[in-house]
């Protein structure tokens, strides 16, 4: 009865084309009303509590950072700089998306912010250049997932706080898997575009080493911006949210002096970032009501407890946990899912002998998959919003399937070779 209501409610409401946030919220309210003795009043508290969050405020601030860069002509310069580097590589600027997402992951701490900020810069530029739209949004949605894996990461911060695991070790553990996944993404793009050159316009002109290096002088302010954001966190100067705020101030100063940012463009950037945040935020609002309705019934815990009681081996349980995360990832945003399930998953997996740091990395990758799984894949949603519905949620989801599979492959590799995640923290701490 519960599952019929959940799945049937979601399909029936979302199928009408109404706002997905409202569809999720309405299903959540129905579940609260029917299965929790009419406890629908919990929905408003849940919404208010989720959005009264200092950590979450990094999301609109990083969206604003991207909008400022977009309107100040930086995107033109970034692509001018990266063009020679990837000119003769099949896939061209699609590789740039992954490279910039990797770099931006080192500034943003959030998968959503990475997809939003890099996407707002890259999508208009690449569609203008004639790249296949599905390939562009796929690379951005997939590349955006690197934001949670490469430090600073909101996922690691919350995981560390909830499980009393060293956040410094978690940050260090995310670096190698993050770079590894990024490399796999680029390898996939290389193969795909070599087989079908129509996906990405190819420039056959030759670029000398000097030209490549000279191109990067155009983007030194972006590199300075990344250094400022990362430096402020590593130097203990600011939290990720604070460094996001400082990043915006730094971006305004830089692009006013060096770019084309005017006061009007700045106002425009702020206005659009507010609308974009609201578009994504409304989805989070609906997901929060649904998450509340399901978590109050203890559904995730019941599922995981059944798994724990079955007497399976460690890796079988891990596989089931991953599958459950993948299933629940269809309905919940990543951080909500992690917060809801950690009280059961963490003791379960550590009890089976898995390293807490390693578990943090694997869970982060799995919830990243949830970020690109419809209907509640927030990376997909942010990109759909960024393209102004030019590319539908379904199309973005299909375009992101290869990145989804690469993440699963990364989990397999991490399971076979846990040292990939544990090497750096063991070396540094």
């Amino acid at each position: 009865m519960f599952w019929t209501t959940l799945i049937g409610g979601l399909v029936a409401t979302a199928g009408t084309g109404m706002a997905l946030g409202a569809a999720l919220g309405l299903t959540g309210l129905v579940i609260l009303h029917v299965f929790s003795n009419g406890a629908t009043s919990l929905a408003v508290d849940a919404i208010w509590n989720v959005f009264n969050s200092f950590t979450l405020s990094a999301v609109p601030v990083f969206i604003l950072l991207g909008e400022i860069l977009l309107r100040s002509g930086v995107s033109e310069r970034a692509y001018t700089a990266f063009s020679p580097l990837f000119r003769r590589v099949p896939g061209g600027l699609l590789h740039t998306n992954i490279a910039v997402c990797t770099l931006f992951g080192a500034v943003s701490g959030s998968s959503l912010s990475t997809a939003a900020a890099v996407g707002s810069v890259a999508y208009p530029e690449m569609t203008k250049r004639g790249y296949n739209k599905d390939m562009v949004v796929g690379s951005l949605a997939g590349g955006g997932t690197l934001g949670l894996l490469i430090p600073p990461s909101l996922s690691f911060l919350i995981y560390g706080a909830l499980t009393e695991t060293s956040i410094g070790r978690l940050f260090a553990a995310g670096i190698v898997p993050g770079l590894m996944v990024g490399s796999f993404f680029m390898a996939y793009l290389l193969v795909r575009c070599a087989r079908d050159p129509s996906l990405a316009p190819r420039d056959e002109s030759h670029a000398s080493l000097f030209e490549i290096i000279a191109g990067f002088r155009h983007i030194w302010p972006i590199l300075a911006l990344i250094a400022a954001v990362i430096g402020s966190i590593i130097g203990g100067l600011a939290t990720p949210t604070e460094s996001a705020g400082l990043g915006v101030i730094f971006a305004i100063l830089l692009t006013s002096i060096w770019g084309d940012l005017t006061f009007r463009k700045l106002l425009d950037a702020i206005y659009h970032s507010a609308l974009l945040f609201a578009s994504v935020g409304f989805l989070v609002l609906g997901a929060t009501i649904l998450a509340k309705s399901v978590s109050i019934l203890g559904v995730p815990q019941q599922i995981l407890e059944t798994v724990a009681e079955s007497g399976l081996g460690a890796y079988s349980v891990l596989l089931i946990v991953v599958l459950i995360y993948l299933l629940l990832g269809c309905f919940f945003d990543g951080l909500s899912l992690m917060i809801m399930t950690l009280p059961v998953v963490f003791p379960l997996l550590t009890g089976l002998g898995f390293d807490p740091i390693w578990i943090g990395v694997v869970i982060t990758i799995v919830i990243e998959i949830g970020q690109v799984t419809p209907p509640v894949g927030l990376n997909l949603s942010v990109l759909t919003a960024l393209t102004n519905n030019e590319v539908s949620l379904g199309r973005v989801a299909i375009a992101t399937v290869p990145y989804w599979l690469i993440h699963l492959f990364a989990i397999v590799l991490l399971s076979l070779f846990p040292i990939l995640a544990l090497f750096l923290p063991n070396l540094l701490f």
Partner: protein
Amino acid sequence: MARSFGFLVAQVLRGLAFACAIAGSLGIAAIVCIISTSVVMRKLGTPLHVTEEVVGLLLSVSLLLALPMITLRAQHVRVALLVNAAGGVWLRALTVLGMLLSLIFFGWLMLEIIPWFEFAYDRNLKTQTSRLLLYPWMAVMPVTIVLTMAILLARLVGILPEEKEDARPGFTDQSETMT
């Protein structure tokens, strides 16, 4: 007469949604300013203790204030698989059903918000650290939800046509306040 009344209602709704969106934008700008000031003040040895609470409140109200505008411009994230496949009467039926369900959602939420707001108002609830009164911030939720419902209702009865999806006017663009 009825046509001019409909025109007036549509103009008022557009104006209110635009005003709310501007206020939401100011909220985002304020978040950046407060966070940056907070970092500087901390370095100067006089940390701002109110930062986290005020930023959290600004985040909530910024989201809510921009909600009517994204509803007006149909910029919500939605699953369009069925809608794209449908046509004619079926498309119209789905659209009407979608708007009705959205109205039910916002209406239901509104029913829950009223006692929630009254509770905070009657007790003059304040934030823990900065002792800011909560109800003025909380009042944004019912106000923006009523406005969002009014926009949906106006669209349902045909007063307010759905604006073009490819139109992406900005802060400096006047199209929000024009027909």
